[in-house]
C-alpha cells in the first residue's frame, strides 16, 4: 500500500494505518511485571491446599479412634521380655517389648519387607525377621539391617492401673 504519511494532510481512507501489527503483543517492562505479580498470585493460591491439610493435621481431625485394649499386667512382663498380642483387629499381630523399667514399645510385627512375623531377640536386643534376616531397632521401629526399608508401624501404649494398654496406631509410613 502506498505510504499515506508522505502527504500533508494525508488522505485518511482507513483508521488502522498507524497500527504496526508485528509489535502488538510485544512483552514490555510493564507487561513483564504484571506477569510476575500474577505468578505470585498463582503461587499464593497453590499453597492454600498445603496450608489446609497441615492445619487439618495440627487439629487432629485425621486421627482415628482406636479401642483401648489391655495387653498384659506389668508384673507378667519382665524387663527385656516381649508379649504377643493382636491390635487393632484380631488378625493384626503385634509385639510389646519392655525395654526398661518404665519404657515400653509396641509395633505391628508384620515385617515391612514381605509381611513375615518379626520376633524379639532378647540377647541381641533387636527385632528380627526370620525370612530374610531383616532387623529393626526396638526403640524406634526403624529398619537397621536386611531388606526392609520402612519402619514397623508403631502402636501407642499407655500404662494404667498396673497394666499396659494399647490405645492407638501411628500411621503407616509409605
Amino acid at each position, binding site marked *: 500500500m502506498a505510504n499515506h504519511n508522505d502527504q500533508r494532510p494525508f488522505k485518511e481512507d482507513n483508521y488502522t494505518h498507524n497500527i504496526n501489527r508485528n509489535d502488538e503483543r510485544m512483552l514490555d*517492562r*510493564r507487561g*513483564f*511485571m*504484571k506477569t*510476575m*505479580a500474577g*505468578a*505470585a*498470585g498463582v*503461587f*499464593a493460591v*497453590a*499453597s*492454600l491446599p*498445603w*496450608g489446609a*491439610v*497441615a*492445619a487439618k*493435621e*495440627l487439629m487432629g481431625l485425621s486421627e482415628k479412634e482406636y479401642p483401648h485394649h489391655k495387653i498384659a499386667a506389668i508384673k507378667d512382663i519382665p524387663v527385656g521380655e516381649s508379649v504377643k498380642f493382636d491390635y487393632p483387629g484380631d488378625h493384626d499381630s503385634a509385639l510389646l517389648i519392655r525395654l526398661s523399667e518404665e519404657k515400653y514399645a509396641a509395633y505391628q510385627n508384620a515385617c515391612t519387607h514381605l509381611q513375615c512375623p518379626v520376633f524379639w531377640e532378647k540377647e541381641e536386643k533387636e527385632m528380627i525377621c526370620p525370612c530374610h534376616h531383616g532387623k529393626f531397632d526396638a526403640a524406634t521401629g526403624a529398619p537397621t539391617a536386611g531388606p526392609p526399608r520402612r519402619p514397623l508401624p508403631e502402636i501407642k501404649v499407655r500404662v494404667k492401673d498396673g497394666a499396659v494398654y494399647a490405645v492407638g496406631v501411628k500411621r503407616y509410613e509409605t
Partner: protein
Amino acid sequence: MKRSYLGVIALCTTLLLNIVFMQLAVHQYFYENYAATLIYTVLNIMLFPLAVIIYKREKNKGGSQSDEKRNVS
C-alpha cells in the same frame, strides 16, 4: 528512553521467594512438621499483595522526562 529495572528485579526476587517457600512448605509437610508448613504457606500468601504493591508503585517509573510528566497528570 530511560528504564527503571528496580521493579523488575524486586518482582523477580518475590517470585524466587515464592518458589523457595513453596518447596519448603511441601517438604515440611512430608516431614510432618505441620506448623512449619503453615508458616511457609502464610509467607507465600503474603508475597502476593507485596508483589501487587511493588507492581503498582513501579509500573509508571522510568521513561523520559516528558513521559513522567504525562504519567503524573
